[in-house]
């Protein structure tokens, strides 16, 4: 067992030494793999964050109920009472028509137009949060409120959030396809790197086969090389994605300050990070395994010449 471990340790050390002999080439390979991996991972991170916030919005869908323009204070108060008593309603906010007009004036930059209006065109409104936020329940609530007297129009405000959610699911699929393609590319790159290595070490492989090396012994350093290269690519991808998130968050800080909302991308979790190291390592190992298996069979002492 210790001998076996020592053998693996030596193979590993020899692999590191091999990488050390061609630092520039190795670094370039890591960079290529890292950049390729960072594309789907970065896309995934952005989508994941957007989806989390869209879920948050979609999870609290609101129903806006607009009163008829000529509804009286008493009629509005009646609706308010009904909403208070309705078990489907979690909470609601009343927006008087004057306040709505003020908001429009301030937020839309249409102050002149608003000022020139002969009278307020906006109705009184209630913004209602439902207790149950499933689409069916919301629709039922909408229809119920529609039936109440002097309610002119009822609107579901969550529709856009659900559309965003669907778009993001599509984006996730794109990220997955991109990821799968680049994983394939990683296997191909490793396959080729290892192929060149096997060919340049042809004589060496022949000699150690002659003095009794098993295929496993010959394969081992190449497999380590593939795994190590994949893993290093993963590290580069992690640095790129983490750095990217940090940079975006710094700029988002200013932006969200203006909009008074704090939207920040979440950093990669520990699980994500480990996956980003282990998954490319496994792919590299696999690419190397394919390559060595294929090319080792061609190198048999005595069959040549």
């Amino acid at each position, binding site marked *: 067992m210790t*001998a076996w471990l*020592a053998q693996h340790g030596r193979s590993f050390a020899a692999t590191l030494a091999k990488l050390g002999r061609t630092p520039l080439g190795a670094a370039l390979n890591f960079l290529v793999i890292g950049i390729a991996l960072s594309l789907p991972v970065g896309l995934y991170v952005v989508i994941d964050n957007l989806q989390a916030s869209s879920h948050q919005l979609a999870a609290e869908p609101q129903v806006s109920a607009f009163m008829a323009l000529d509804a009286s204070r008493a009629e509005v108060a009646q609706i308010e009472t009904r909403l208070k008593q309705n078990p489907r309603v979690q909470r609601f906010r009343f927006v008087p028509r004057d306040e709505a007009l003020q908001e429009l004036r301030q937020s839309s930059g249409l102050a002149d137009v608003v000022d020139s209006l002969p009278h307020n065109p906006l109705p009184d409104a209630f913004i209602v949060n439902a207790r149950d936020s499933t689409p069916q329940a919301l629709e039922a609530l909408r229809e119920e409120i529609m039936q109440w007297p002097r309610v002119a129009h009822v609107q579901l405000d969550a529709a856009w959030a659900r559309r965003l959610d669907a778009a993001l699911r599509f984006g996730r699929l794109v990220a997955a396809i991109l990821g799968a393609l680049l994983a394939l590319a990683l296997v191909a790159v490793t396959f080729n790197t290892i192929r060149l290595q096997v060919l340049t070490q042809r004589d060496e492989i*022949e000699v*150690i086969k*002659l*003095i009794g*090396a*098993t*295929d496993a012994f010959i394969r081992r350093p190449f497999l380590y090389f593939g795994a190590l290269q994949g893993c290093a690519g993963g590290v580069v991808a992690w640095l790129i994605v983490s750095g990217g998130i940090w940079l975006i968050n710094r700029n988002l800080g200013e932006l969200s300050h203006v909009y008074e909302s704090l939207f920040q991308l979440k950093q990669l979790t520990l699980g994500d990070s480990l996956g980003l190291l282990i998954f490319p390592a496994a792919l590299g190992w696999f690419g190397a395994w394919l390559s060595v298996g294929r090319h080792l069979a061609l190198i048999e002492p*005595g069959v040549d010449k």
Partner: protein
Amino acid sequence: MISFSHVSKRYPGGHQALKDVGFTIEAGELVFITGHSGAGKTTLLKLLVAIERPTSGSVIVNGQNISALKPRAVPFLRRRFGLIFQDHKLLFDRSVFDNVALPLQIAGYGMKDAARRVRAALDKVGLLAYEKALPITLSGGEQQRLCIARAIVHRPAILLADEPTGNLDAEYAAEIGELFRSFNQVGVTVVIATHDQTLLARLAPRVVTLKHGELAA
């Protein structure tokens, strides 16, 4: 220890390298395989370490039929031999020490034990002072001695040498001959394929002569 019976080898393309060869070598013997070039000496050695398989007949080493050996078992067969090549087959990207350590690494020896054995083997062939040197800096005779050190480092019971003195001048060849004699004296079976008559005269071994792939009487 080694026995050939009715062994024939025909290469793809039709060349008949060996024809109905049969002989045995006992443990501890010193045997020369001689014959003109192309007589089948090298093929005979290749059959012993399963580089080639016989077309017919059987090659038995230590009671094991080499011709029926599974590919997975071949590395373990080869570890029982010490192989010495005319072209040395050294690895030029690593030191003298690392070249000799290779068979021990393959067999999974611990570092300490391996280092001790490597130095003993290098001492035996007189190259201990060069352990950190690269093989390319050694002379032809020294390279051949290095190849011998690598072949004996794991203490094999059988040494196989293919034209070990083929590229060497007489003085070096004599040194190599003495080395083989000393291994044989401690009980190692030594099989040498050569047409070096001087070596033959010096060691006075048992001789197996091949002629056009057949045993000559």
